[in-house]
């Protein structure tokens, strides 16, 4: 999924981009409203994160113009303006959510996942609603998995990874294949990125992360889902 991120503060923009990429999104960055509009036209994103107070063109105006061409594209406002009236204006302009600074990483992740779920629901995909990996049932469109009554939150990347492994049941998938599918071909990971990610994912989806049943390591080759 592609996210257009427009924020004039460089550090905030880069930090948010890192969070989004970590979640498995492709991020297009813009440092002001005008640049955001140009990128919006040139490389249509799946959803947009807009700061309100930006040079050249405010987030409100950018939102209006984006809505004029694509009325359904999800838009999240991210701003230091926390006055209720700002929220109301943002939501009346058709923003899907409003994240107020200062925010925590978990809050941003939760809100972005919620928007992603709504995107999936609106897309009315032909994909099956869920698939099983052992005793774990994965709901890719909901970015969730379930074991018994326990609900497990997943990132977009987690879902991609699990979908890939599930689709190649019993096959060993090497690092490059996994990277290309889950991180994108233009991503140059360091050697530990995938292992760390798998390790974190196992903590959440495996009953016993040290003796994984769903994602197994094939030493020197890659990872495999036995089925």
């Amino acid at each position, binding site marked *: 999924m592609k996210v257009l991120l427009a924020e004039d*503060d460089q*550090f*905030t923009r880069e*930090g*948010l981009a*890192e*969070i989004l990429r*970590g979640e498995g999104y492709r991020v297009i960055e813009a440092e002001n409203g005008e640049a955001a509009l140009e990128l919006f036209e040139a490389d249509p994103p799946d959803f947009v994160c807009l700061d309100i107070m930006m040079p050249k063109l405010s987030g409100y105006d950018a939102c209006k113009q984006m809505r004029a061409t694509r009325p359904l594209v999800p838009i999240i406002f991210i701003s*230091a*303006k*926390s*006055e*209720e*009236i700002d*929220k*109301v204006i943002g*939501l009346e302009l058709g923003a899907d959510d409003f994240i*107020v*600074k*200062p*925010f*925590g*990483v*978990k809050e941003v992740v939760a809100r972005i996942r919620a928007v992603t779920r709504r995107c999936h629901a609106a897309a009315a995909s032909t994909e099956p609603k869920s698939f099983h990996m052992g005793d774990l049932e994965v709901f890719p469109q909901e970015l969730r998995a379930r074991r018994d009554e326990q609900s497990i939150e997943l990132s977009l990347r987690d879902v991609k990874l699990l979908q890939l492994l599930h689709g190649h049941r019993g096959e060993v998938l090497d690092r490059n294949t996994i990277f290309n599918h889950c991180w994108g071909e233009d991503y140059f990971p360091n050697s*530990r990125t995938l292992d*760390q990610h798998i*390790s*974190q994912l196992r903590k959440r989806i495996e009953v016993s992360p040290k003796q994984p049943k769903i994602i197994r390591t094939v030493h020197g080759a890659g990872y495999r889902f036995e089925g």
Partner: protein
Amino acid sequence: MAKKQIILFSLIVCLPLAMLAWLGWRLAREERGMVQQQLSDLALKRLEDADLVVAKYFQQRQRELLELTDLDDFTPDSLRQIVRDRPEVGQLFVLHADGRLLHPDPAGELNDSEREFLLHARQTLVDKDLIQNGGSEERGSPAGHGWHVRYWGPGLNLIFHHRLPSGNVVGVLLPRSRWIADLIAELPETAPAINLRKGPGSEARIRLVNSAGEVVYQWGTFQPEETAESLAAMPLSNPLSAWRLEYFADEKGFASVGRSAYWNLFGALAAVALGLIVVAVYFYREYAREMREAVQRVNFVNQVSHELKTPLTNIRMYAELLETDLEHFDAEEAAASQAHLQVIVTESQRLSRLIANVLTFARQRRNKITLRKTPARADEVIAAVIERFRPGLAQKEIEVAFDAGAGDTVMLDADALEQILGNLISNVEKYAAEGKHMKIVSRQDDRQTTIVVADRGPGIPSAVQKKIFRPFYRVSDRIEGATGTGIGLSIARKLARLHGGDVVLLPSDSGTRFEVTLDTPQTEHGGAA
């Protein structure tokens, strides 16, 4: 300027002015009424003076006529001789005691004057038996003599009768032109002016008006308009009671006397109004200056708070990202860095809450807080807030217990609940750490969510329990090392009340128990999660 202030200032100026104007108008009206009454009284006095002149004239004539009519020779020649000799006598007549008209004798030889007299006066004087019976039209006059008024010719004719001891009656008809001329000669040529207090005098005119409404004589320099009404009028004394006197004066002259009251009133009102306006403007300017400064202060705090948000966002975000990164390292090698980072995260969260409180407080002062309820689960919000506080609480060895019972999706402003709980838990962290325990219990029904935050700290002295929700009130002044702005509970209560609920302090034997109630209606699709 707000509408309320405009109304207030208008009232401050207009209300006293309106009351003064009303009182002044009443005073001026009474003053003017009194002046009018004085004028009428003075004018009447002038007319009474004129009437006295007329009365004196007729008294003088009466005395003369009584002498003249005291006759014993009733022969026509002697009687005609008297008429010829005395110009003030128009006609003499004599009635016998038995009522017969002795002179002028209708059967005898009559001159023109006698014939005319008989023609006009016989009917009323003789045949009506007025005089012969000793009657008199003049009330209160002695029966032996009196005046009679009869109309013929150009108008009023005056007749005087005198009953002699013999029973005969001698009467005299006064020649009209003569007595009118005499009367006019008696009356003054100038009409006295009216002077009121120290006010200016006024030119005047007095008119003598006959029974036909014609002006017989008038004196005084003032020339009233034809349609002018008299200032005063009165009938003349007998025998001319059918005539009247009218007094005219230049009202413009003394209208100013009454009007001066209005001018005085107007001047006083203008002075008071000016004073009030000056006072109102002074207070308004002071008020406006204070308001402006207050707004500037609030704007400054807002601006600073907003400006603080961006660097704070970055500190918090990067600290959290770093925390995530450290999770990838071995627990042992990352432990120290994790602890350091935790401080940054916890402190940035504390700063976030402080800024949020300052901004909410500023909005509250401007009555600009509005809540937005969206479908949410209270327990999820509570869990997230506890999670955020956990490192700080753990550091102070405060054990946290959460008894969750509000898991339905309801209409809720999650931000408001976060802020309310943040303030309550922050208080536990700051003031009740010695209790080493915090318990949060949440419950829910169809309409309401109730959350109790309890600690085992020193509690709040009963004497100050009612004050703790006041802005800037701090019990903690006596607690060594504790910090705080004193607005947390006030904001928590304000937000809860805006959410249709409240924050109250529950009675407790030990520690502190705050109960938060929020109006949380079910969502359209029902609440069950």
